């Protein structure tokens, strides 16, 4: 029976993203000696930091069977506003606090429409996706904003020898992991994603859980935006475009289900981010055609989703046989 695989094969398939990540690293290391270096790994982590923070927030939303399409626009808006503020001479920390507040405000609006007016998340966040980008374009006059040195310094700065973006990413991922696995709220996120009605019966305040996940997602988007601009010299009108899809892709590659209730930030989403980022980095290293990048990312998603789907079918089959 082809469905019954041996245990080792099984374990391999259960961790398909991890395996794929290892294979990717191996592949690029063989093709390009520079790829497999301490420096480059640091590079991948620094480049992936913003996406990891973004995808962490997205994972919370996906776990409740929701989606947040507005994160890329929040990133852009955050970039534009903080850029303008810093250029006009306001202190960095002040700009930071303001834009994090903007991220929370977006999350609040999303959540409000979702649980008060019962609009589906896809539609609500599609609206805030357009609104956010439009607002950003309006404020920036659709022109690129050149950023001052001080911001870039922050982006390349180090604390205890660890680059600031990596440090922020680790803090966010660790906090998220801790919240999801070790707090009441975390368990409620999974419960609501599985079945809101049952959650209500179990005494969980579903609305409060939804509000919190969209706030977290908005906050992470803003923080991710700050981390991203601290690595750029200027903010172009296309900044943050498609970031929402990168974040969703990373979460899904990490095993999070779009139907809610299943997935993790660590290792899940983090591995997803590393996979995407190392592929991008590797392709640059071997001088591949830049137009190949999205194509390859797409293929990888196909592959992972296919493995996952086959796994599910096999599991169902096994369960059926096991029951009898």
């Amino acid at each position, binding site marked *: 029976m082809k469905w019954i695989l041996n245990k080792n094969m099984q374990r391999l398939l259960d961790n398909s993203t991890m395996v794929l990540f290892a294979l990717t690293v191996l592949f690029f290391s063989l093709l390009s000696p520079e790829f497999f270096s301490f420096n480059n790994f640091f590079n991948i982590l620094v480049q992936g930091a913003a996406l990891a923070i973004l995808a962490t927030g997205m994972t919370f939303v996906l776990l409740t069977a929701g989606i947040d399409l507005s994160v890329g626009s929040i990133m852009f808006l955050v970039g534009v506003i903080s850029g303008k503020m810093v250029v006009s001479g306001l202190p960095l920390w002040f700009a930071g606090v303001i834009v994090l507040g903007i991220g929370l405000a977006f999350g609040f609006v999303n959540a409000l429409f979702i649980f008060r007016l019962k609009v589906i998340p896809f539609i609500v966040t599609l609206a805030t996706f357009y609104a956010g980008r439009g607002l950003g374009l309006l404020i920036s006059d659709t022109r690129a904003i050149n950023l001052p040195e001080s911001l870039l310094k922050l982006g390349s700065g180090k604390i205890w020898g660890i680059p600031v973006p990596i440090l922020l990413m680790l803090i966010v991922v660790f906090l998220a992991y*801790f919240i999801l696995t*070790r*707090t*009441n709220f975390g*368990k*409620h996120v*999974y*419960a609501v*994603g*599985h*079945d809101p009605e*049952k*959650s*209500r*019966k*179990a*005494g*969980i305040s579903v609305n409060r859980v939804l509000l919190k996940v969209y706030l977290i997602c908005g906050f992470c988007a803003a923080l991710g935006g700050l981390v991203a601009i601290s690595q750029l010299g200027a903010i172009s009108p296309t900044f943050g475009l498609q970031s929402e899809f990168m974040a969703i892709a990373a979460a899904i590659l990490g095993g999070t289900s779009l139907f809610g*209730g*299943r997935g993790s930030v660590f290792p899940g989403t983090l591995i997803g981010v590393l996979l995407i980022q190392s592929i991008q980095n590797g392709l640059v290293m071997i001088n591949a055609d830049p137009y190949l990048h999205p194509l390859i990312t797409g293929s990888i998603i196909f592959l992972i989703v296919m493995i996952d789907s086959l796994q599910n079918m096999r599991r169902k089959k096994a*369960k*059926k*046989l096991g*029951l*009898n």
Partner: protein
Amino acid sequence: MLLKMNKISKSFGEVAVLKSIDLKLEKGQLLGLVGENGAGKSTLMNILGGLFAPSRGTMELNAEPFIPNSPNDALKAGIAFVHQELNLFTNLTVMENLFISDFPKKSMLGLSFLDRKKAIRKTDELLSEMGLSISPLAKVDQLTAAQQQLLEITKILNNSPQIIIFDEPTTSLTRYETEKLFSLIRKLKADGTGIIYISHNLEDVMLLADQIMVLRDGQLICQEDKTALSIPKLVKAMVGRDLDQYFPSRTTMPAEENLLEVKHLFGGLVQEVSFSIRKQEVLGFYGLVGAGRSELARLLYGLDPFTSGNIRWKRNKISKPSPTKWVHEGMAFLTENRREEGLMIQQSIEKNIQLAGLTKERSLGNLIPKQIIKNKVRQQANANKIKYHDISRQAVATLSGGNQQKVVLAKWLLLGPELLILDEPTKGIDIGARHEIYTLTNNLVKAGSSILLISSDIEELIGLCDRILVMSEGRLTKEFQKGSFDRSNILAAALHGQEKDEKR
């Protein structure tokens, strides 16, 4: 007096669902609550459980006024509800399910978080008390139906309730597991817990209850000591008339001609099954849970692929059966899980009924003749005695179980099937609706169709069938002809395989 409900009434809009109901429950007492679907049992219990507020009437708990505003209030007051549909999160672990409402916490650095060690230890304790040998960290979707049921009860006992409401707790349990549950219920009673037990299985109710309360059409018919009651008395109180003939008689005989022939069918659980069904025959399949009856029907209907075998329909070979093909040929399959597989639960009654028959009624230019279908649907709904108030707007989800089943049946009858497969058609359905379903199927046979009936209820098979085939562990073990039906022989044939297993 533990619980008193005084003159409880409830109306939804214009419809009065409960009319001035009184209920009394003492400590350590088990009150059986029976009545047909739609009699108001669930509504009454939902009022007690804090899901609805009564339109009129009061409740007293331990001689104090009790006014729950939410399920949480009722839970805190010590009223627990074991719903027919389990309230478990299958994506979480056993431990997480037990504590989802309130985890044990510890604090560090001023932050409070879950105390996993403590939770696991407590879970272990609770599970061993229940005699459940599962790991606290097992995912719930990997448990069997019975384990899930017991886990749900464990969860409820964790809150040490004063009153437990059981709503049809045995539908997914085997007899052995049922016995286990019953001994647990007796233990709870002995500990002083008040229990309200809702079931259509009157034998179970008679076995367990101290007092039995009968509801009919939202009215209290009686609350009496069990000793003053008997099953016929209960049935009469529930239905409001004598059910002189439980199974309506049918005088038709099967024709000589075979409608369907199955030879050496293998696939999944099913091991070399051969049988045939004649025109106008009612063929029964009996077996224990997991004997492969539903699997056989699924193979036959093309819902699962079979590995080898031969299916002939009116002498024509059907090489690749599929539901589309069978609907076209005139075979219909009423599945076991009507909610998941048989109905679009949020759609209107009309939409559900017209679904399968649509393909047959095509007129000019392949358009759907709306009015014709509308009329046909209405006729069928009335013939099936479905109780509805608005056929084109009322969602099927708002109907009682028996009426939902009648909707599924109406859908297939509209198609005018030559062979109708019924898989546990009366599971969880009350006596009145059962009788109506039996009458409908009999009429179908009189009109010339055949029926393949899968049931775990021997009485039902004996009452309806021309022939009964018994399955055990995926194989056919015995065949019984009408006239030589015998309860114990049929059961013995079903157990046959298992006994062999134990001897090995």
